[in-house]
């Protein structure tokens, strides 16, 4: 992998104002608002709401960053940039892998900012291992979304990628229990929520403060990651065969 290219791409993503607003600014602001409303409460199982909100919003931001970055492939194809890249020594596989790594990298700021806010203004007190889980753990749990973005990015058109990105964020945020907590919804809705990968992303983070099933989360997210990688690979091979 070409590290210099990866860094240049990272810079391009991180200075995009749309990206900054929707995947870093919005989760941070939502976190502060929710914190003001529910920050001093706890769920029935004893999980403090502040920690749960922190995990939800950092996970939401990182998930959005990862998904949208992978889906950027559709835009680059639309611009004809992929043809230009094919006239460089970088192979198509390396391009896809670099994109997935980029998607993971740009998820870090949201987790860093929201977790920092949680520690400084949210009154979230955790030990080192717990902090590791809500930061690095959540970050690693974003991997299936990065791969999902790479898979979808190969199918989507530039226009549909924009719309699908926004729609997916909405659906995964809502149905994954990031916008309102699964702890308070009826049982049938909880089952729907548990079908989404975003529910399990949150669960991995929450396991640090006692409210999430990390083992199941890792298994479900792992399965999503494998499935997304297979779809992405299959699509790429089909594209090669067509050329």
């Amino acid at each position: 992998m070409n590290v210099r290219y990866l860094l240049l791409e990272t810079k391009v993503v991180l200075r995009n104002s749309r990206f900054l607003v929707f995947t870093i600014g919005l989760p941070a602001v939502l976190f502060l608002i929710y914190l003001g409303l529910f920050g001093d409460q706890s769920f029935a199982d004893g999980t403090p709401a502040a920690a749960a909100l922190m995990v939800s919003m950092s996970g939401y931001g990182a998930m959005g960053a990862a998904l949208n970055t992978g889906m950027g492939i559709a835009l680059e194809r639309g611009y004809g940039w992929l043809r230009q890249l094919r006239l460089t020594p970088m192979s198509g596989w390396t391009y896809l892998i670099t994109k997935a790594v980029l998607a993971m990298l740009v998820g870090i700021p949201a987790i860093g900012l929201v977790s920092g806010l949680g520690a400084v203004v949210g009154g979230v007190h955790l030990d080192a291992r717990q902090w590791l889980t809500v930061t690095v753990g959540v970050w690693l749990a974003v991997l299936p979304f990065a791969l999902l973005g790479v898979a979808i990015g190969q199918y989507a058109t530039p226009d549909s990628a924009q719309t699908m990105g926004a729609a997916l964020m909405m659906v995964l945020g809502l149905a994954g229990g990031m916008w309102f907590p699964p702890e308070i919804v009826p049982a049938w809705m909880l089952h729907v929520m548990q079908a989404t990968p975003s529910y399990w992303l949150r669960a991995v983070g929450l396991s640090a403060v006692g409210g999430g099933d990390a083992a199941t989360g890792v298994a479900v997210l792992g399965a999503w990651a494998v499935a997304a990688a297979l779809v992405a690979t299959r699509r790429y091979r089909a594209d090669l065969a067509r050329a």
Partner: protein
Amino acid sequence: MTNTLAPPAVARGAAVHIAGLVKHYGPVRAVDGVDLVIAPGEVVALLGPNGAGKSTTVDLLLGLITPDAGQVTIFGRTPREAVVAGAVGAMLQSGALRDNLTVAETVGEIAALHHRSGRLAEILAKADVADFARQKCSKLSGGQKQRVRFALALVSEPDLLLLDEPTVGMDVEVRRRFWASMRDYTVGGRTVIFATHYLDEAQEFADRVVFLRHGKVVADGGIAEIRAAASGRTVGVTVPGVTAAELAALPGVDTVDVREDRASLRCHDSDAALRAIFDRYRQAHDVEVTAAGLEEAFLTLTADEEPRP
């Protein structure tokens, strides 16, 4: 691959060697059996009407698409190997630029991938884009975008440049400057292949013209050769007291049109015809030799025998 024979001796040292190349899209044979050997240092124009197979040929040369039959070698390597080695650069016809990147970022990314980041400033200067290097690609004019694409093609300092309709969207002045920077680039003996619609560009810039029609090479030669092959030359001469039949019998002459004493001779070999005229008719005067324009040659060569559906 239908062609498993080793390329002939001349082709082994060739910049480009194409043998039996075929590519079809469904029933359309976009490239239909093209053979071509291009020597290092040649500047070749690929000329032909829309749908002649120019862009498909360029894509095959770059390895962007795989042929259904035949083979392409560039400096003895496969197209992909040549790209990886940086031996071939290309200006693609469409798009290729991302709106949200600046010119310097665009060229910088491609330079990074070629491991040429250290040469970025030099490339920007060479392609004449340094003035607007900090602008977003979305803010550029059509001509500026073409220059950025040219910069991308130059990044690896390729020995072979492929240009697909390079001056589309450029105004006259920008076009002139573009060809000037291209000339600078080829001074060191680099090879250039460009696809174009502009006959005057082929005429002015190419050493050699390859006409494509319906995916086949219908003519291939130097500019002068092509012109002559298509329509020869027209000799105008005043020869008092000579009949059309006498003139028609002269060597090199095809047809004759005489009005008063002024004859107009369509010749496939105007040199032979003129020698004979001055030998035999001392009174001949006011000689005028005109070559048919490339446009005429082009139209003759690429006109369809039958209307296409």
